[in-house]
């Protein structure tokens, strides 16, 4: 791992940009096998006190890390910009292989800088690459300042304990940029498996017979549950009604043509990782399909309408929170056409 570092106090974006270019030129002259990565710019806005924790999270995302990271650490009372820039290569030591160079700019700034964050980071992001803004500690004004510059807003709608407020914020971002929501990505294996359950042709008609959906979630991940219900509603053409909260549980109904679907969100206290813990889908003719977290994947259980029961494990490794963040960065380069409709349905359920 080659590391080249430049640092300055009370500096300007132009000086940082110039220093980065110089570092890249110097490194290019020294090593022909080094190639700068050109995938995605990430502007991360964090509380200075938690900067290290965020850097650790970004280090652990593995191969899906951003190619240029601009880490903006916000300190109360600061009025000047201090910055450092570094290049690092993922060299394998094999001279016949290309080593990929990543760039990171650290800027320490004050809260007053956030309203014009776009002006500060604009010279520091590579044009023609997708730019992602991520503000894991709030800093909504920074995200809003980046609306003209960022193609993607990376967020975790589970960060806000109030699901209605969380979905409202997501909807507002959706008007300005493509949103990648880590809470949505935690639900990907569940959506895949529910889709697979009903995929055999013999089972597809059962999609029109769904009468009840219960989603189990970690208590702080109600948003993940609502997004799952929003996804089902949007894909299956249900007209969702409002969810009502009672004793930490949400319940409500949706219209599926002439049928009514009962919707329920159950918090499960003992779940280790955030996100969903299980889902049960029932049909009007008595079939039940359940998926729950298990060792080595998801435990599936099916009861057919004639009462036959079967259980199996759907294989798949947990991606962990680092894997979810890495997936979020990868998804910044893709587009999921089902997220927006799911969020809108979720919004209706929480209105």
């Amino acid at each position, binding site marked *: 791992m080659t590391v080249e570092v430049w640092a300055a106090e009370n500096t300007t974006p132009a000086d940082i940009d110039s220093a980065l270019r110089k570092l890249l030129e110097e490194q290019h002259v020294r090593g022909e096998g080094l*190639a700068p*990565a*050109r995938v995605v710019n990430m502007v991360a806005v964090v509380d200075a006190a938690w900067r290290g924790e965020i850097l650790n999270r970004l280090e652990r995302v593995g191969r899906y890390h951003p190619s240029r990271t601009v880490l903006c650490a916000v300190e109360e009372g600061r009025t000047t910009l201090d910055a450092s820039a570094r290049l690092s290569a993922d060299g394998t030591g094999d001279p016949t292989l290309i080593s990929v160079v990543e760039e990171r700019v650290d800027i320490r700034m004050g809260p007053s800088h956030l309203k014009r964050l776009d002006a500060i980071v604009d010279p520091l992001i590579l044009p023609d690459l997708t730019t992602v803004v991520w503000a894991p500690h709030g800093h909504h004004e920074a995200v809003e300042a980046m609306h003209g510059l960022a193609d993607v807003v990376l967020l975790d709608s589970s960060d806000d304990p109030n699901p209605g407020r969380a979905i409202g914020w997501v909807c507002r971002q959706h008007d300005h940029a493509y949103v990648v929501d880590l809470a949505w990505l935690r639900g990907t294996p569940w959506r895949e498996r529910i889709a697979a359950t009903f995929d055999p042709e013999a089972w597809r008609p059962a999609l029109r017979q769904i009468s009840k959906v219960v989603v189990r979630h970690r208590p702080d991940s109600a948003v993940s549950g609502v997004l799952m219900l929003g996804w089902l509603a949007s894909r299956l053409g249900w007209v969702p009604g409002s969810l009502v909260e009672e004793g930490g549980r949400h319940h409500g109904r949706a219209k599926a043509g002439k049928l009514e679907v009962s919707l329920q969100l159950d918090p499960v206290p003992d779940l280790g990782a955030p996100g969903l813990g299980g889902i049960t889908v029932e049909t009007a003719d008595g079939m039940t399909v359940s998926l729950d977290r298990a060792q080595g994947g998801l435990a599936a259980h099916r009861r057919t309408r004639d009462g036959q029961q079967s259980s199996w494990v759907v294989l*798949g490794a947990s991606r962990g929170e680092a894997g979810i963040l890495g997936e979020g960065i990868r998804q910044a380069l893709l587009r999921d056409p089902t997220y927006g409709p799911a969020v809108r349905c979720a919004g209706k359920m929480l209105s």
Partner: protein
Amino acid sequence: MATVQQENPLTEGLERTPVHPTTLIIFGATGDLAQRKLLPAVYNLAHEGALPERFNMIGIARTEQPDDDYRAFAREAIQKYSRRQPDETVLSSLLERMRYVPGSFDDSAAYEGLESIANELDEEADVAFNRIFYLATAPGFFETIAEALGQRGLDRREGAEVRLVVEKPFGHDLASAQQLNRALLSVFEERQIYRIDHYLGKETVQNMLVLRFGNGIFEPLWNRSYIDNVQITAAEDIGIGTRAEYYDRSGALRDIVQNHLLQLLTILSMEPPVSFSADEVRNEKVKVLHAIKPPTLEEVPERVVRAQYAAGVAEGKDVPGYLEEQGVAPGSSTETYVALRLGIDNWRWAGVPIYMRAGKRLSRRVTEIAVTLKPVPHLAFHESGSLGVQPNQLILNVQPNEGVSLSLVAKIPGARMRVRPVNMEFAYGTSFMSQSPEAYERLILDTMRGDATLFARDDEVEAAWGIVDPILEAWQNADGELPQYAAGSPGPAEADQILLAGAEWRPL
């Protein structure tokens, strides 16, 4: 709003679309291919949640052992060869679904045992699993196994699909390939047969289709008016290792050119398909193969060169020559290097020489396709002090540095108008920050999905052998010793003899 009819609206937007419950049956389950490639690939698919939600695997091989011993073997293979550290919970769950049938491939009792376990797995789950028979055995068993499966009625299944995956080599000449096709097609339908060429599972090879047909910049230039020549290289720096028994009967022409390099050539030169469905793509590939005129017996010496590596130096160490390698027949005339010149007789490519070379124990490991454009008619800037001005080249790097580079001529900074070549590079690693999945993962998944686009069809395999056959015949009748090249060198000097005037091999 999605309508709920016979479509499954829940699959919209998913990267991994559902795959029907599947039982994968590997013949040769304790062999080298299973150990190094298939078992790790199956594990990685399980790790990523890409296997069907209900999945079983049955291994079949001669070794007498219970299920648990086979599971221990599979565990060790996965731990040793998987591209990622296995997750113990996933690995254990996967191993639980593995069963083992001991038996010889010509023993009907083995097929009885296999059918019994496969049926038992279906009954346990109350699902008619698709069945994929993967022939990871020596090629001599392909016909035997297919015939035995047919006799047992395992080639068809009510309510589920049955597929047969056949590893290379698919025949050793045109006649044997035709015979094998006849034998397989007497039991299975063509749509059930998946002939593996693992090169087609590589991301860079698939990207050739995207590069050609997804970028408007190339298509206008992709013809005889602008392309001077094409060079396809598959160079290995290693020797034959432990594969002497196979390699000495095969050689570079059969091992690399007949399958991998001709596949690369078809993708490079085919016409745009109407769609990317399996048959549309394969129809276009077959047209290219039919347009390649095989060399006549008389033309072989001037269009094809073969050679054998002699002792030399690799990675700083002395290494033996081919004839000194363990397991090679004394006085063997098997080629470890081949270079040839072909042409494609159609409107797009007529007159464009296609050069191919493949070899072992060369100076560098590289697989690439170099498309050299015709030079500009007049280079006004060519002043003294300009360096190595060459026509533009588009290089498609298949391995190890997966990517694409385009050589251009640029002005050297300074007062004078001097020029030199520079490269525009696209490297997979720098643009996607991701490791390409192993080719076998993609191909196994495609067999489970029933997508045959990346597999060779019967007529495709036969057309490829039809190009290579006259060369094999000419060599069979040839006298004299093979040219030699030192291990660790760029290959034999004789390779230059097949180049047309003005052409030269790209340096390795």
